[in-house]
């Protein structure tokens, strides 16, 4: 098992280098021609200055290979430079204070999706074409098609404006400091309800669909028939034999959909004014705060890579066939 994990780790190294390479290529998109001042609502007033700063920071006048090597060296030392914003703080500090928020949201989201999608998928697969199956299928198609920002706006109108039940922005109320400990916790949680609801909606649709599909395939297999023939109860056959096998593809899909989930936090955080990485990214893009943009890009990509790696290793744990040979999930 340890060997398997180590091998995955080594295989991730080229991806890591690739991540830095793509990010590096993005820097070189910096326009050679002056940025158009009429570019809509993009703040371009500082672009000339910004370009100068970029040139100094990344040494854009040196040969490409030298630039890349220097940039790689800085990344390795976690030196992402300082923000172009007036506060001029190190990029790493800015990201560091926002990372936990985004991680917490994404982990909560993932746990809720998995906890709900598995039973939903199982129930609709074992009762294929039942009313429940049909209702969930409709939900799945709607879930795939609903723009998350629209859902967020509708929920804000309903629960925030019309009913006034839930707060619609930030993570804390204005009078947070004057609340007792328990009230503070409750206040915090109530701020999370809508963002997490929106973030889980689309993902839940996808995952319950995959779970259903996977379960449908598994229950047609011979070993399920033989488990039944052995006289095992339906509960054991489905809940134990079928479930374990049906969950295998789900682990892979989980790993592969992480980039999408993390990307989704950009919109959710922007709408609900949650101080996470996604919101930081959007602000930085508007302010053309290039060091923050690059730092964000590299760190988010690395986090996704690590999460993928964990999913790979988890796959090795649940499926012994993978550990013994072959090329992982292919």
């Amino acid at each position: 098992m340890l060997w398997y994990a180590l091998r995955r780790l080594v295989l991730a190294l080229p991806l890591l280098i690739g991540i830095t390479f793509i990010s590096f290529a993005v820097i070189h998109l910096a326009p050679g021609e002056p940025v158009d001042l009429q570019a809509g609502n993009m703040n371009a007033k500082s672009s000339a200055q910004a370009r100068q700063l970029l040139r100094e920071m990344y040494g854009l006048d040196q040969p490409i290979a030298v630039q890349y090597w220097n940039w790689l060296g800085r990344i390795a030392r976690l030196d992402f430079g300082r923000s172009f914003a007036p506060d001029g703080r190190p990029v790493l500090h800015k990201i560091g204070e926002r990372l936990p928020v985004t991680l917490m949201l994404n982990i909560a989201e993932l746990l809720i999706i998995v906890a709900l999608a598995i039973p939903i998928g199982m129930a609709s697969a074992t009762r294929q074409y039942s009313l429940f199956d049909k209702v969930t299928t409709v939900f799945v198609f709607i879930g795939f098609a609903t723009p998350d920002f629209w859902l967020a706006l509708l929920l804000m109108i309903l629960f925030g404006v019309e009913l006034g039940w839930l707060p619609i922005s930030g993570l804390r109320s204005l009078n947070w400091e004057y609340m007792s400990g328990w009230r503070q916790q409750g206040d915090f949680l109530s701020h999370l309800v809508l963002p997490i609801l929106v973030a889980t909606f689309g993902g839940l649709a996808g995952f319950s669909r995959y779970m259903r599909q996977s379960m449908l395939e598994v229950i047609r297999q011979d070993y399920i028939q033989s488990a039944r023939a052995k006289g095992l109860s339906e509960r054991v056959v489905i809940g134990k034999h079928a479930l374990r096998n049906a969950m295998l593809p789900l682990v892979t899909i989980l790993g592969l959909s992480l980039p999408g989930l993390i990307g989704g936090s950009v919109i959710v955080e922007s709408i609900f004014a949650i101080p996470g990485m996604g919101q930081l990214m959007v602000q930085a893009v508007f302010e053309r705060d290039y060091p923050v943009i690059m730092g964000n890009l590299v760190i988010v990509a690395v986090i996704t890579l690590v999460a993928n790696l964990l999913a790979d290793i988890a796959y090795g744990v649940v499926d012994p066939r993978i550990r013994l040979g072959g090329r992982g999930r292919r």
Partner: protein
Amino acid sequence: MKHFWQAFAKNRLAVAGGAVVLLLVVLALLAPLLAPADPHRPDVHNMLGAPSAKHPLGTDQLGRDVLSRMLYGSRVSLAVGFVSVGIAAAIGIVLGALAGYRGGLVDATIMRLVDLMLVFPRFFLLLAVLAFLRPSIWTIMAVIGLTGWMGVTRLVRGEFLALKEREFVLWSQAVGAAGFRVVWRHILPNAMAPVLVAMTLGVPAAILTESGLSFLGLGVQPPFATWGNILNEGKDAIEIAWWLSFYPGLAILVTVLSYNLLGEGIRDALDPRLRQSRRLAASRG
């Protein structure tokens, strides 16, 4: 082909999806004729007007007719959807064909690149690229296309791996056809079915991405209307003018839903074998 139409016609949801898709294309093409008002003309006497006979979907902060803006916006969505999927498919077909036909180091390199692009959270990458470029409909199309070719690459590669060992391909090679001719005339046509399905399902994904970017204010810039930026302007007025937020979102939902139903219908009608390959492709993002 006859078999395909029969199977497709039986799937009522898919036919309905296809009909709505057609309708949307017609509406977008005829927008200038159908729009009840000029989408850019402000009306200071009727700002944030509720839906009425004159303005069926109300007016926005500047008094512009929302229905007209949405009709024009549908052109942007459609154009971005088709062009970016075209770009993605072109890249995917070339790379997938190379990887599948050549194999070896070429294959390994291309597939590592695919893995790498799949690890990148696409939305962050899009934002980073857009920060350096000026957002316009062209850059949006280009960046969505350039970051969305991985699924098609994998599909085409898989088809090529399977097809290049088939007899008709081996035979044409045996009689001395050049590599390019073998690929272009014999393998590619046989590999196109799953690509077409992937493209049909790629259009709504691109539309969702574009509207998300426009919603953040990083997509197609005002005064040009898109469903995403009408929503973006509408969100500041959700407490008083719900119609500004409601209808554009509903339009996106209906559009995406129809394309998905159509795409899945085509897939199921084409070949039961495709269910397998499409599902794998979808799971790979």
